[in-house]
């Protein structure tokens, strides 16, 4: 998957969960949970939503790798077709 497409998917799911936050203003290397003020339910929704849109299922053991916007996008590039 292309990097831009991966970022688009993540941002679009985030915009549904945290509509009040402009993705353009967040630090892409900062922790998503802080940058988008996500609790564990929100994060579950994020993993579920992005997983469905990208056609992959992110296992819990990989949560550390997807903790940031950059990291999550990179993860999709590496794992999603």
């Amino acid at each position, binding site marked *: 998957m292309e990097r831009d497409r991966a970022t*688009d*998917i993540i941002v679009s799911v985030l915009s*549904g969960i945290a509509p009040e936050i402009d*993705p353009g203003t967040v630090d892409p290397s900062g922790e998503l949970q*802080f940058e988008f003020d996500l609790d564990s*339910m929100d994060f*579950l929704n994020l993993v*579920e939503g992005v997983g*469905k849109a990208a056609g992959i299922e992110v296992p*819990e053991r990989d949560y550390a790798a997807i903790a940031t916007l950059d990291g999550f996008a990179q993860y999709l590039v590496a794992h999603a077709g």
Partner: protein
Amino acid sequence: MGAFTMPSLGADMDRGTVVEWRVAPGDRVSRGDIIAVVDTEKSTVEVEVFESGVVEELLVPVGEEVEVGTPLATIASGEAIQPLPAPSPPAASPPAASAAPPPTPSSPPSRSPAPSPPPPSASPVPVRAHVVSPLVRHLAEELGVDAEALPASGPGGVVTRADVVAAARLGLGVPPATQPSGPGAPPPPPAAPAPPSAARPVGRPRRARVPSDGARVVASPYARRRAAEAGVELCDLAGTGPGGAVLARDVPATPSVSVTGVGAATPAAAAAPSASEPASAPLRRGPEALRASVAALMARSKREIPHYYLRTTIDLGLVRSWLDRVNVDRPPGDRVVPAAVLCWATARAAATNRGLNGHWVDDGFRPASGVQLGVAVSLRGGGLLAPVIPDADTLDADELMRRLRDLTERARHGGLKASEMADPSITVTNLGDTGVEEVYGVIYPPQVAMVGFGKVVERAWVVTDRIEVRPVVTVTLAADHRATNGHEGARLLATIDRLLQDPEEPWSATEPPTSS
């Protein structure tokens, strides 16, 4: 005949506004049916009726603010009418908050832009109860589908609107659009029951269809749920989000005739003419009103309640290993987060430490029957609600997780029911997701205890004479010294700890569901 009155949705509510009637005179209602939507300072809440019968008269129009206790409608006794299947098994406990059926979030949106979101999409456990909301039952009648015979995809065995639509689409006797059953209209003839095997499998109820060109539609999860709820295909919608992603706002608020194929079968609108313009109702609710409500309650708490505070640190090593084990094979939507296990332990502990589970009323403590677990939910934009999980001490960790997720979603996006806004018997707050290690709560009067959890952190921990790195969490108790002494409070925290160290407890025995 009985009067349906404006309910008290929490200790601090004295007035409310009907923003939608979901019934009209002549409609049959069963105990537990949601018949009105009420706006309070805090939230918009779906209100159940606690009596079966026929609606005689609506006494208060949409938009009028009235005091708690004001009769809103008259309901004729159900004895003279043909009884309908009860929407839920009779509750064994007294008709307080615990008497309500499990959430029935399948009703059409009551008001844009805050429709009732559907439940978490997967229901991997065998269905125990079988619950049909009045709207879904109406829809099923009009589509000629036997709602009682359908597999239920909602939490707690709730048959959702989507279940009915899916069954109807499978050719289970979809008649032409019939007249909505209004006042005096005879009930539609009973239709052939839908064999359970003919509907879609439980557990994958809302998978979006891939468009014919094979490309996947990008959409937010909320938009997906709303689309599934409305029976709309994502690929038929024009997305306005980044990269053309379909967002919740792109999904029609109510299923339109052409896309659902169910004709005029939108019973809410048909049966409740007064609900046709809910947007005209005055909306006093907003961040300021919610803030004022929280301010008044918290000030009262600190004025009246002599708080005492305790804290302890709990080893979550066993919980972590259990979560690792059950979550590894589960899709994200079925995974359990630590907060759910902590709520589970708190509910169980409250059940056996009854001095902390109840209310301080009229200079005395009244223990609650069952644990009505309040869960503090922060809303985006600064609001705070503490809706209830009824009888939380009877649920296992898996079920508590589902309820917690569903409740959080509806607290944030609308669709809470009156029974979920009733006074909890004890409340949990969890600030761990924000990164703090401890939170000392302010008790919600008239409750007498608030349990707080911080962040789960890795710490050096002594385990039988050795130092290990373990996940630990700090739990605090804020308790009302009028109702209990520190000794009793300490026993509550100790009980929570013991429950989380006991591998024989039900949460750890729960096996992962088979993935479908």
